[in-house]
């Protein structure tokens, strides 16, 4: 009886010939990926975040502003998976404005969608004097994430690995200034850029420590450097990321980097920061990413979250999962995931199909399935 046939029998606790109690835990699977040893199955998880709220009819504004509600959305989501299909990781994420908002950027909250950016924190360069490093326990919506992380850790932290998204320093600067103005600052006002990067990095450093205390690993999302040259990345982002990673390591915080967008030209640059893993989006070939930086980092990704996960069929999902595993899972050092967050409206059956496909094609030893 093949693996898939076994999966089809809900009551059957045997997977891959092993009793469920003999399976590895998510944390063991992820450890194996980092140790470059083969686990029972490629570690796997789809990124489902705000989608978890709307799946249970919770208004987005509640999810974004209430730690208990946000935790409830994740726990409900996790509980909904059949026992043998549970994802290895939960990625806690509200939106990309948490840090910038805590530093003074204004946003507009909405009932049925993520908030939108409204006003910059730094309208004129001298506004920088007003900036204060946020206290994660008190400022803006950082406490919401921390409360969510604590509750999820308490309730299901023994079973699942918890990651929490925080925005990278370069991207925080974009939200502080307005992205277009920040792009021009890079050319016309390097001292301002460096000052903003120092402040953003420090804010992020403290937030990461607080997340660890609450039971979540820092997953740094850094999309903005994908639209600048490697030269600018090296000058204005890399030194700060490298420093952040090193400081965090001393405090026991392991940095995962997630990069949305065209990460091709900065891929090696990101790997040089010393981060533990790089998660890429669907614009990059996952096999190529593994070849290029797989010696330095664990590679994560990259099933298309929109065309495939949100709008695709389970068949399409299975095909893409298989493709990713074939390209990147050999030799360990790989975690199967989606290229980015599965948007609001992603059907739960698609999320389960993702995990089913992970079992069907991702058990080690891989045998050219």
């Amino acid at each position, binding site marked *: 009886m093949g693996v898939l046939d076994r999966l089809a029998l809900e009551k059957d606790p045997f997977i891959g010939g092993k009793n469920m109690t003999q399976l590895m835990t998510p944390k063991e699977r992820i450890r194996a990926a980092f140790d470059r040893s083969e686990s029972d199955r490629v570690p796997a998880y789809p990124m489902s975040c705000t989608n978890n709220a709307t799946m249970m009819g919770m208004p987005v504004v509640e999810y974004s502003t209430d730690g208990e509600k946000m935790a409830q959305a994740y726990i409900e989501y996790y509980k909904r998976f059949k026992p043998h299909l549970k994802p290895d990781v939960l990625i806690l994420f509200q939106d990309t404005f948490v840090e910038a908002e805590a530093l003074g950027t204004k946003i507009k909250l909405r009932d049925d*969608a993520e908030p939108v950016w*409204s006003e910059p924190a730094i309208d004129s360069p001298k506004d920088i004097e007003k900036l204060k490093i946020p206290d994660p326990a008190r400022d803006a919506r950082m406490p919401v994430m921390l409360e969510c992380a604590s509750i999820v850790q308490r309730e299901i932290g023994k079973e699942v690995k918890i990651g929490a998204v925080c925005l990278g320093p370069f991207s925080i600067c974009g939200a502080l200034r307005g992205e277009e103005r920040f792009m021009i600052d*890079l050319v016309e006002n390097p001292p301002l850029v460096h000052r903003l990067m120092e402040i953003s990095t420090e804010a992020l450093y403290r937030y990461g420590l607080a997340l660890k205390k609450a039971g979540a690993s820092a997953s740094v999302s850094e999309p903005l450097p994908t639209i600048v040259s490697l030269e600018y990345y090296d000058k204005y982002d890399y030194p700060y990321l490298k420093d952040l990673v090193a400081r965090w390591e001393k405090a026991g915080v392991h940095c995962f980097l997630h990069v949305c*967008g065209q990460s091709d030209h900065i891929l090696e640059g990101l790997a040089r920061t010393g981060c533990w893993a790089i998660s890429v989006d669907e614009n990059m070939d996952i096999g190529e990413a593994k070849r290029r930086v797989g010696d330095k980092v664990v590679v994560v990704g990259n099933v298309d979250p929109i065309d495939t996960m949100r709008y695709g069929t389970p068949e399409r999902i299975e095909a893409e999962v298989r493709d990713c595993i074939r390209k990147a899972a050999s030799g360990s050092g790989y975690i199967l995931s989606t290229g980015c967050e599965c948007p609001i409206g992603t059907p739960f059956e698609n999320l389960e199909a993702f995990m089913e496909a992970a079992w069907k094609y991702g058990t080690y030893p891989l045998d050219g399935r």
Partner: protein
Amino acid sequence: MDILEEIQKNLIGGKYAQVAELTRSALDAGLLPDTIIHEGYLRGMEAVGQRFKAQEIWVPEVLMAAKAMNMGMEILAPLIKGQPKENRGKVVIGTVKGDVHDIGKNLVKIMLNGTGFTVVDIGVDASPQKFVNAAIGEEPDIIGMSALLSTSIPRIGDTVKALRQAGIKKPYKTIIGGAAVSQQVANDFGADAYAFDAAIAVEKVKELMGKLREGK
């Protein structure tokens, strides 16, 4: 190097003060504003578009080149006021309702301006009605919708539908772009084209203009 080549070079390099100065020198030397625009700015922006497409330059450099062109245009605008504006086509562009991301949209605007198109930017968070009003008022050839957030995808459908229902007489084509959208989304919602980035957007717009001319 002649003055037009110098203007091109400085525009490509984003040296806006030099472009302004060279523009004044060019006028003093008796060059016509139209010549300066076509042989100076537009040639320069064409090179900018090509380099951006080839990933030799990136968003900051494109924005600086646009700044340089805008400074030059400010000097020339009063001199060409009233002249019939020759243009390759008219494009209405906006970011759909619920979405305020605009770097992509602005890059497309810059590149299209730089290729000689007239662009009417209706801004961000633009409702289907706002697109319809612009379509009726401006009579564009092309209507472009930008969307970064995945929650904006249904708005693309709403906007295309609203445009169809408005019964606009002048033939137009629609194009969509942004991180959230794809060729699949264009197919599903009936948009005529999809562009992955600003450089490709210019090519697609030119293709669509060709189709319109052929009555397709």
